[in-house]
């Protein structure tokens, strides 16, 4: 700041006089500008058309096959379409997996962001942490899935994994899949929290320190309540990503369409067990998968789309509200 102020800009050469445009309308533009203008419009409209097409097509096909009993009945083994049941388990699986992923990701992400913004020393470690999170954010989900499988097949993780009677560890369970899913959400929660903390004015921190408060007390009482909305936005974005992810589900949650508990401990048995989500259900029932029941796939895909759109709407709403909040700036 001070260095900028020390030197006033040198006297500017008089700007070359350009003829004032006579009316800034498309008619007066050069052809290259008209072309670029038209291309911008076309790109925007094309995106809208694609979005409407996806939602419209899925709505038509989905609503065609969606019956209330499909929503509330479990998948059944059967050859005929009428015998294969509904999508209750995939819906529950989606919710459970998302919950696990978010519950694991949020505290870690928030803690990391707080450390980075409020402490961030040594600087080399801070840079390392940031690039580490960038690597996680940039890793394709199928790579995360394969890596997760390699890790959770270790005997160490037998207690949280679907296991064969001989003692073989499959490395597949809700916990295993949820743990890898948390890596999908973590960078988003982290980035949102970091941005929120970084945007808080320094006088908020100094005001608290000047009252004889420690850094940790300041973070807990003054700063974190201020970034609650940022965290919520990050969580909502992460939720959207987890709900939409397929590769990790297919690789790490097992191939069973029904939620298949392992062991006898209530609760834990579900977490240890395998299951499915809407994405893996769509994959399994599409002609590309093994089920070849496109009607069910369309119905499930439509439900998935509605869930994702609802989450996006919630993110928008959160973002809009947070811009209205006075931050004491």
């Amino acid at each position, binding site marked *: *700041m*001070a260095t900028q102020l020390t030197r006033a800009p040198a006297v500017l050469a008089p700007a070359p006089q350009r003829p004032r445009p006579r009316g800034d309308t498309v008619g007066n533009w050069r052809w290259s500008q008209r072309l670029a203008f038209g291309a911008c419009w076309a790109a925007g409209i094309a995106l809208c058309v694609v979005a409407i097409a996806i939602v419209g097509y899925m709505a038509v096909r989905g609503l065609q096959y969606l019956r209330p009993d499909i929503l509330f009945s479990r998948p059944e083994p059967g050859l005929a379409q009428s015998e294969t049941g509904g999508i209750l388990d995939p819906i529950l699986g989606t919710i459970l997996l998302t919950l696990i992923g978010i519950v694991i990701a949020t505290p870690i992400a928030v803690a990391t962001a707080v450390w980075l913004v409020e402490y961030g*020393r040594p600087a080399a470690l801070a840079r390392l942490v940031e690039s580490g999170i960038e690597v996680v954010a940039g890793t394709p989900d199928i790579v995360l899935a394969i890596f997760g499988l390699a890790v959770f097949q270790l005997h160490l993780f037998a207690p949280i994994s679907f296991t064969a009677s001989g003692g073989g560890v499959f490395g597949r369970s809700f916990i295993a899949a949820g743990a890898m899913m948390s890596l999908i959400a973590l960078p988003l929660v982290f980035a949102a929290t970091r941005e929120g903390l970084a945007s808080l*004015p*320094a*006088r*908020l*921190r*100094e*005001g*608290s*320190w*000047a*009252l*004889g*408060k*420690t850094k940790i*007390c300041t973070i807990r*009482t*003054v700063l974190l*309540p*201020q970034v609650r909305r940022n965290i919520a936005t990050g969580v909502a974005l992460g939720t959207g990503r987890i709900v939409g992810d397929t590769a990790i589900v297919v690789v790490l949650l097992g191939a069973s369409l029904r939620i298949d508990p392992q062991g006898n401990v209530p609760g834990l048995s579900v977490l240890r067990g395998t299951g499915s989500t809407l994405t893996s259900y769509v994959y399994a029932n599409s002609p590309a998968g093994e089920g070849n029941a496109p009607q069910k796939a369309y119905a499930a895909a439509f439900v998935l789309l509605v869930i994702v759109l609802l989450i996006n709407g919630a993110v928008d709403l959160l973002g809009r509200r947070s811009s209205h909040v*006075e*931050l*004491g700036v």
Partner: protein
Amino acid sequence: MSMYDEVGPADPFLEDDVPSLPPPRRRVRVDRTPLPVEPGAAPFARVRDRSSGPERMRLEGLTVNYAEARVVKGVSLSIHQGEVLALIGPSGCGKTTLLRTLNRLTEATATASRGGRVLLDDQEVEQIEVTALRRRVAMVFQQPNPFPMSIFDNIAYAIRVQNRKRPGRRELEPAVVDALRRAGLYDELGGDLDRPALRLSGGQQQRLCIARAIATRPEVLLMDEPCSALDPKSTAVIEELIGELRRELAVVIVTHNLAQAHRVADRVAFMYLGDLVELGDVDQVFEAPQAQRTRDYVAGAFG
């Protein structure tokens, strides 16, 4: 519509110095709205024959460096209870840095380093636990910075000591009300302490910050241009408040507004490029300055 429209005003917090009013030759009073003063109370006027109280803080050869740059160069002065010490000087001359050294807030800046001694009641500030020190040497900032909580919680937050069982609302209420009273804010609030603090006006927010700072009964109150973000009316109210507060504690105020320094201060320290050029009673510094630099500055020749 040009690209330059995008650029908003600079963050006032970053701006160390705001342009001050042209300094007066004689004592000038800003038009102020009379305050509701309880009958019988003496009108606000500086007591000329001050009997300055006991010494609270003493600086001995204080130097502060930011990385390589020395911004405070061997300043020695003492701060007494019962008087207002105003630090004046042109922008970037180390006034704010000096102020922030007194409660060790410069330690939050990684590049800052300090030499010389700062004593609070004859004890080196390094030897006092920093949270305890800051409860005894409170600070009010340039921008009102109430926390985004209720009015009550803002002050309760200051009162609560860490690592103790958190006292409840009933136990804290008298202390909170007392702090608000002393900051002259209580009557304006109409008993509603649960309002968000950010809903208050700028002047009220600053007085809330003062209430928060004095809630712990500090011995010294540091004020870093407390009025530069406020309108003249709020400024007058706060200046009046400073006059009240100096009875019970030592006040150090950094100001760019020479008229304000003239109005509120008992003693004035003029700093220039990190040096303490002149230190003396307010009338002496403003009306018969010893140093040529002080004479020029007070006369408005530079700044």
